[in-house]
């Protein structure tokens, strides 16, 4: 059983439905800066972060390219490989703009992914709460723990 994990709970039901309908192997829902909001199929968070950084970079660079040639945007991107294809697209939600990367295999097709992606976006837009400010997150005395964590990382 491959895990679906979400940072923001409102993304979970639309994501689970999309993964099932589109037969996607891996899906990442992220912000344009590459911060992951939800994912399906990645066993390690640090691996997922590399994929999301690259996905966000592709969307950002194609958006900048569109601007240079006088287009508002290029819409979705699709790359076909021998065993996997990827579909990469951005969408607007009340929570802010999001980027979705879908990796799929031969058990489905780009056509099916595109059809169910549109439903997925509609579901995200319906479920998304408005962005909100937040209060303090960490305790004021976090620095001693940070120092110990970094020292452990660097073997000191």
């Amino acid at each position, binding site marked *: 059983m491959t895990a679906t994990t979400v940072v923001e709970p409102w993304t979970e039901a639309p994501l689970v439905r999309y993964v099932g309908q589109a037969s996607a192997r891996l899906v990442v829902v992220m*912000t344009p800066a590459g911060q992951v909001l939800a994912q399906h199929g990645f066993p390690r968070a640090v691996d997922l972060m590399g994929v999301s*950084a690259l996905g966000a970079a592709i969307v950002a660079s194609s958006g900048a390219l569109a601007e240079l040639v006088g287009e508002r945007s290029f819409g979705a991107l699709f790359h076909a490989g021998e065993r996997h294809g990827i579909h990469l697209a951005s969408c607007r939600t009340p929570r*802010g703009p*999001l980027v979705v990367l879908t990796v799929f295999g031969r058990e489905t097709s780009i056509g099916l992914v595109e059809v169910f992606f549109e439903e997925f976006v509609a579901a995200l837009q319906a479920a998304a709460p408005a962005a909100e400010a937040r209060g303090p997150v960490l305790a004021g005395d*976090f620095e001693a723990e940070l120092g110990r964590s970094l020292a452990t*990382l660097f073997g000191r």
Partner: protein
Amino acid sequence: MSLVNFTTREITCKIVYYGPGRSGKTTNLQYIYGQVPEDRRGRMVSLATQTDRTLFFDFLPLDLGSISGFTTRFQLYTVPGQVYYNATRRLVLQGADGVVFVADSQARQLEENIESLQNLHQNILEQGVDVRTLPMVLQFNKQDLPRDLILSPQELDDALNFRGLPTFAADALRGTGVFETLKAISAEVLRRLSEGASGRPG
């Protein structure tokens, strides 16, 4: 902007290493990659030219472990330093929670350092962010070079550090100052979370 998951108690922050070409931004990340145990880091992604100059960015995800009960992860990015890659620098800066400015200590590189720092401020302003509110530290790299070729940390501080930011002398190739720089920017970024800075997707 830092991403905080209160349900699973996770924090993810984006830190960008900025500076002129060949100042040692990629070397910082390579040293960190080499020091951190495999189970606490992801694969280092480098989008570079055939001559190993950074074309788009380098990327290294780190798992810091638990801080104040939150699983804390950092995404470390570098930008391409060469002047003509400004469009990609702007893209990489989007959503940064903190910046490490890596200056080249060589005396003949002073102008490049100043131009790069001005370029950083310009790019931050264009994103609608007040430069004074963005956590930032300065690293004076290549302090291992012969004395007659480099400026001292005090001289570099006088030339570059008009905001009174934390500074660190470094030799990134051998790791001197790399850990201290990362620790300082991490503390600056997390301090904003402890002070209640707002965060949202984007």
